[in-house]
């Protein structure tokens, strides 16, 4: 459904994404596991059209979308949940979930339940600074669910989350897949990536291994967590 081919991105001459290849299949959850600075968010931004690559291409449903705008990609059915979602003054949770669809109240309520937010408490609350980080991320997932996207890029939906929110977040991701969305689940957590069908490991802007979650988690633990590149910017190189 979504293919990333030989994608390259440099910043000030330093490689951020380096000839990266990846495929996300229809209705499947593809985990992207990597330490901080590996290039995960940079890749998410390239897929969503927030930034553009120097080289390579992004193919969606056999169409080259490498130079398409964010809006064009959004209209095609690609969307993203940010690691730190934006806050909106004066926009209620209910309105936010209806931003580009005509769903009824019952549907909106169902999506809120899927991420463990009681609609009675949240529908009329503003999507502003009064929501906690965990609540805001759950609202973000609910809004992605409400869109029924063809591809959802989830940038670290599990990071900075309280223990109460985490199972609801994971449930939301599973529901996304059940309703037919292809999900690119970006994370540095082995726990989170276990819901995926396939996992790729990213380091220094490159995919360095791919396979089933259990195997990749073990590989990640053995190789990446003891690697001196942890916490280092990817452009330092392997």
């Amino acid at each position, binding site marked *: 459904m979504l293919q990333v081919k030989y994608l390259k991105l440099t910043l000030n001459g330093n490689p951020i994404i380096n000839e990266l290849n990846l495929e996300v299949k229809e209705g499947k959850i593809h985990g992207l596991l990597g330490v901080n600075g590996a290039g995960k968010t940079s890749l998410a931004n390239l897929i969503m059209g927030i930034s553009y690559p120097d080289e390579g291409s992004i193919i969606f449903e056999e169409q080259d979308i490498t130079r398409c705008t*964010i*809006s064009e990609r*959004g209209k095609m059915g690609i*969307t993203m949940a940010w690691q730190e*979602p*934006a806050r909106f003054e*004066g926009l209620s949770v209910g309105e936010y979930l209806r*931003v*580009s669809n005509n769903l009824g109240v019952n549907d909106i309520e169902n999506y809120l339940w899927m991420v463990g937010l009681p609609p009675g408490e949240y529908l009329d609350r503003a999507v502003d600074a009064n929501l906690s980080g965990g609540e805001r991320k759950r609202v973000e997932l609910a809004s992605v669910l409400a*869109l029924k996207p063809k591809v959802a890029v989830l940038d670290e939906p599990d990071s900075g989350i309280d223990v109460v929110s985490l199972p609801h977040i994971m449930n939301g991701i599973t529901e996304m897949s059940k309703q037919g969305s292809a999900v690119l689940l970006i994370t540095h957590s082995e726990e989170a990536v276990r819901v995926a069908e396939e996992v790729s490991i990213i380091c220094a802007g490159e995919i360095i291994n791919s396979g089933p979650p259990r195997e990749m988690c073990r590989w990640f633990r053995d190789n990446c967590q003891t690697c001196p590149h942890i916490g280092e910017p990817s452009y330092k190189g392997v």
Partner: protein
Amino acid sequence: MLVVKEYEALLEAYGRAGGNLDALRNNEVGNLVIHENKVLSVQEADGIKVETKETESGVSIHFLVEEGAKIEYPVHLCFGVLPEEGLQEIMLRVEAQNNSAVNVIAHCIFPNAVDVIHKMDADIKIGDNAKFSYRETHYHGEIGGIKVIPKAKIVVGKGAVWESTFSLIQGSVGLLDYDFEIFGDEKSTNELLVKVFGKKEDDISIVEKIHLNGQGARGLAKSRLVLNDNAKAMVRGETYGNAPFARGHVDCLEIVNGDGVIARAIPVVYVNDKQAKVTHEAAIGSVDKKQMQTLMARGLSEEEAVDIIVKGILR
């Protein structure tokens, strides 16, 4: 007969602007309707006394909320000038006695203004433990030939609450010179909020001053402006922490959305008691990039995304 005609015309303009006509026609709801310098309707509710006196250029009003009175329904004030030219000076004296509670909604209607001046000078006293909520909403035409000059001095008693919202987001602002000043006593709550949508050649000046004079008094001077085209705006939010445990905050946001816009914000925070604390935040700039990207990733165009963000800020 003429009065009835003017009254109906004013209500019609109010209705066209999206106002709630039922509230003004409900016999149980207190209201006061003024066109130019004529009082067209006065309806008192239990616990409220309204005295009016027509002057050459406007109306003097004494608005009293009796001690202990809790007014169930919002009281509606309606001020307007329907002709293209005119002057309306409202001298407003408000006295909310101790332990009273009221919610006042003012509608200011100037749909045809080419050369209109609307001035309000308000002297407001909120008694101890009283609660006064004041919301003023303007309905202007598109020409922008109007000068709106609201000034108020508000004294808020011990444990009392003053909350006001001034909203001018419909039609052209014209010239706005808003100046509200509050003096808050012990444990009082003092909140000023201004929302303005400036367009074309609009010229906007907003001054919000809060003096936290009593121990434990709290204050918020908040403003939200969106500026298009060649609109100019200056916002001055001042908060003075003059007593122990006084807490104040100045919060100004101006969204600049036009090539000819000039936006200024001057937050003033002043503390002369070591146990008081006053903070401020002021942001002037274009629409937040991340908010835009988020909405565009939902398939909205850039224009649609800006529209949603702006409407939210001005809501």
